[in-house]
């Protein structure tokens, strides 16, 4: 009895957990049904606003559908090492080109290391890697290992660039993964515009240094927009929204200061010969459209005034407004409700936008009427990550920048993150070429105590305050919260300086209707299979068959529950695995029942027969499950995408089956025999 109590407890525990993990999937399904029942777009927008938290939570925790079921794009990209090495070389001559082409051809079908082959081929021509990638004093082996690291790091830069763009493009639940040392897997659910995505993924990254507009000017522009919107215009853009206060969190500013003694910055290869074209391939057409009438660079007055005066003038009424009720504030200041000004003791000013409002803000800025209010030399950008989190809402910083970049990433020769040994805080060293250094000295010199934003593909990664005039091209950026942030900044700076060229080597697109088709067919066949197998079991084993069917249903429930808890993805082959699980899961019960029948025929009393039946069938069940699990694991290791879905589902099904077929059915029989039943119908 004690044993049974524990088993019952386990069963109920698993059942509860499964239902708990499956609940979001059910909820998500419900929400989708309700939304699709709503007639017009306004209603569904209101519905979404009302339940947005629940909807998003359900969506996050539901069982994910693979691309083959919901449609989307799956892309594998590879760093074009030949192109990278060509870009890295000090001189690009015909011999190098020949060698790189020959190496590409040769390594296409082998596992040889690209750099190794290039070395051999250069040597055949009486040359060395050093001739192209090193200085005279460098050791050939050091040059080689630096090159190899460079190749390995390229993929990290590529990932950062791709992630940055996809985030801006606005795909829900994208997957961006590193695969091996030079590959990148990108999954974009729901996307079907192949050309656009291809451009998005393969375009050259654009790194820019842009001046952050003086707060006075920024405030004026923002107020113009606010006044315009408060006048009842663009009301349609302002939908009902949950109200959250933005707390006055302290935001740390990065500070950029000179480091005259730059011995810690090593001089590496000159990689700045190539020209970073200013092609805006980020898919951010909104910004593109505003790029008209770029006038003189210096049309913005550069006042070295301290910003303290701001509080007394422009922003005074804003502060009092904040004491109004949220509703009133929103009505009077619709723009400042979306883009909240936040002033700090030192007089600096930041603009904050909730993650959920980002799209809305961009949409408003896109409007022609608003565009007319904005001076042509101003552009806008968001921070790359949320500056802080308030009431569970991510808050991004909104930057008002000078449109014309001061410098582009081409001048950056090198970047390196480190921990400053004296202050023990993270720091990024940035090195520029001579041409860039001269400009940089001029720019920093005339913008002391102002912020210069480091912008990659129109996303601001950092906006350090200039402390000194920086001559010599060696800068040091500090004030990052941790080493990870510094590392990211290093990658961003390098991504602009040395783009990692990517080629698409595999690309799969599934249209939405095929996915629907597949789901329907998959569910349809699962259901038929389930019903037929269940029916057969009852016909053949009578009461015991019903017990096995119960175990089967538990099994399916557990499999789905485990998948939901893992955030695993259900693919079409995954459904096939589910069907197979239905077929296989009765096997264990068949084994046990056949044994019990044998024992009963041999004259044993029911209770003993059940005991022996379970005991003797156990070794066969274990061995057969383990061998099947072995093949499923191997399949998972070698397969890709959908096939992995199959292997994973099968594996979970097999493991769940060990419990449902052996433990759950046993509970029922044990309880029955304990209650004095001497005959159970085994058919």
């Amino acid at each position, binding site marked *: 009895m004690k044993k049974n109590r524990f088993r019952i407890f386990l069963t109920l525990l698993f059942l509860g957990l499964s239902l708990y993990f499956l609940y979001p999937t059910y909820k998500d399904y419900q929400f989708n049904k309700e939304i699709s029942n709503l007639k017009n777009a306004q209603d569904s927008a209101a519905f979404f606003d009302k339940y947005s938290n629940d909807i998003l939570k359900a969506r996050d925790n539901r069982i994910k559908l693979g691309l083959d079921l919901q449609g989307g794009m799956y892309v594998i990209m590879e760093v074009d090492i030949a192109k990278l090495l060509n870009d890295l070389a000090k001189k690009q001559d015909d011999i190098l080109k020949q060698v790189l082409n020959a190496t590409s051809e040769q390594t296409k079908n082998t596992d040889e290391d690209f750099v190794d082959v290039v070395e051999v081929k250069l040597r055949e021509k009486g040359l060395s890697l050093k001739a192209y990638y090193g200085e005279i004093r460098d050791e050939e082996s050091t040059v080689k290992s630096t090159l190899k690291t460079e190749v390995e790091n390229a993929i990290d830069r590529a990932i950062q660039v791709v992630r940055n763009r996809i985030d801006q493009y606005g795909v829900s639940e994208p997957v961006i993964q590193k695969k091996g040392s030079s590959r990148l897997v990108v999954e974009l659910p729901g996307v079907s515009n192949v050309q656009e995505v291809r451009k998005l993924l393969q375009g050259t990254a654009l790194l820019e240094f842009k001046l952050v507009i003086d707060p006075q000017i920024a405030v004026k522009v923002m107020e113009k927009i606010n006044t315009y919107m408060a006048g009842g215009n663009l009301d349609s853009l302002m939908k009902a929204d949950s109200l959250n206060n933005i707390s006055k969190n302290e935001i740390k500013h990065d500070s950029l200061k000179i480091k005259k003694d730059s011995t810690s910055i090593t001089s590496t290869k000159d990689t700045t010969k190539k020209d970073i074209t200013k092609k805006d391939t980020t898919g951010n057409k909104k910004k593109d459209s505003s790029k008209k009438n770029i006038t003189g660079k210096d049309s913005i007055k550069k006042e070295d005034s301290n910003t303290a005066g701001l509080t007394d003038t422009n922003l005074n009424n804003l502060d009092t407004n904040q004491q109004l009720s949220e509703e009133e504030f929103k009505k009077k200041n619709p723009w400042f409700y979306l883009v909240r000004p936040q002033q700090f003791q030192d007089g600096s000013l930041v603009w904050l936008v909730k993650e959920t409002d980002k799209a809305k803000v961009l949409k408003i800025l896109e409007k022609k009427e608003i565009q007319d209010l904005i001076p042509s030399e101003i552009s806008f950008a968001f921070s790359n990550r949320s500056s802080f989190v308030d009431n569970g809402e991510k808050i991004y910083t909104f930057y008002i920048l000078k449109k014309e970049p001061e410098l582009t990433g081409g001048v950056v020769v090198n970047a390196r993150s480190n921990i400053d040994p004296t202050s023990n805080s993270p720091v990024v060293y940035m090195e520029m070429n001579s041409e860039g250094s001269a400009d940089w000295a001029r720019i920093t010199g005339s913008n002391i105590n102002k912020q210069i934003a480091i912008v990659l593909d129109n996303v601001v990664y950092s906006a350090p305050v200039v402390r000194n005039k920086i001559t010599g091209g060696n800068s040091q950026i500090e004030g990052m919260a941790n080493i990870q942030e510094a590392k990211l900044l290093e990658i961003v700076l390098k991504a602009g300086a040395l783009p990692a060229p990517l080629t698409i080597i595999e690309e799969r697109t599934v249209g939405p209707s095929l996915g629907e088709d597949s789901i329907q067919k998959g569910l349809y066949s699962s259901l038929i299979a389930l019903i037929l197998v269940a029916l057969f079991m009852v016909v053949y084993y009578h009461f015991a068959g019903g017990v096995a069917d119960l175990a089967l249903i538990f099994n399916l429930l557990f499999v789905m529950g485990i998948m939901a808890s893992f955030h695993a993805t259900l693919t079409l*082959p995954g459904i096939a695995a589910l069907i197979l699980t239905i077929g296989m899961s009765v*096997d264990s019960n068949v084994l046990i029942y056949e044994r019990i029948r044998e024992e009963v025929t041999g004259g044993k009393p029911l209770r003993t027969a059940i005991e022996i039946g379970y005991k003797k069938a156990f070794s066969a069940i274990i061995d057969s499950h383990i061998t099947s699990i072995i093949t499923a694991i191997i399949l998972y290791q070698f397969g890709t995408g959908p096939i992995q879905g199959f292997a994973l589902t099968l594996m979970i099904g097999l493991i769940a089956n060990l419990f449902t077929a052996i433990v759950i059915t046993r509970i029922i029989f044990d309880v029955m025999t304990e209650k004095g039943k001497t005959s159970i119908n085994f058919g």
Partner: protein
Amino acid sequence: MQFFHNLHIDFLGKRKVFYIISAVLIVIGLSIFFTKGITLGIDFAGGTEILVRFQNDIPTDAVRTAMDKTGIIGAEIKTMGNERDILIRTAEQGEGSSISDRIKEGLTNNIQGNSYEVLRIDKVGPKIGKELRISAIYATLLSLIAILVYLAFRFEFVYALGAVLGLFHDVLITLGMISIFHVIFPNLNLELNQGMVAAFLTLIGFSVNDTVIVFDRIRENIKLYKNEDILSVMNKSINTTLSRTVITSGTVFLTVFILLLFGGEVNRTFAFTFTVGVLTGTYSSIYVSSAFVVDIKNRQKRSKAPVTGKIAASKA
């Protein structure tokens, strides 16, 4: 209800006949496989494949003409399941503005009054294709080795060898059957793709599962019937497990057969491969794996004086 009760069929007595049947089937199947071959799917061959659904039925010739006009020569064009779904496949991958865009353009420009919707586009580079081929072979071999090791540990090396031999048999027979069906019913669109590899690995799992259950009973019966020779112990074991074998194989067969009928085009290759696999997997447990063990044990007995399955008994 009970299908089999108290059976005493001499399964293994006539094993030589079945050796011949298996051998003949494998030879026929493989000779068709090697002469006619089997279509390599895009996963392994590389290339571009695009599946479109037209508003109305469309003859493949019209699509071919459209492709010829666009300059896409030698593309494979076939219907998928019905006259509206057309699959276009070409070996080219196209750089940059890829070939799939050209195909779409060609369809839009040259086929009037019958709009289409893209269901699926696959583009696999030659490098990936080759890698997938290699990993498929590795996966198959590795799982065979893993099974060999596990069974050698749980049973005896001879049994493990027998089980793996049975698996080889199943893979070869299934491959042959796919080739034969592919030649007779080209409309089934069977091709060697990742789904088929998954099916092969699953059938390996299923087949060994079935073999293990028979072996498990042999392991048990050897201890019970110490004085009987291996052939009769094995026959007994096969007879007693037959009921379970038929029921399990039956239910699994039923489920994959339903998948084959209703699961749609995408799962078809998997379902077909596995349907054949269930049949041969069940058969091979008896006539390949068990039969092999009998023959080896008998040979050992002949060369090594009277040992009656004691090795197995002591190990198990």
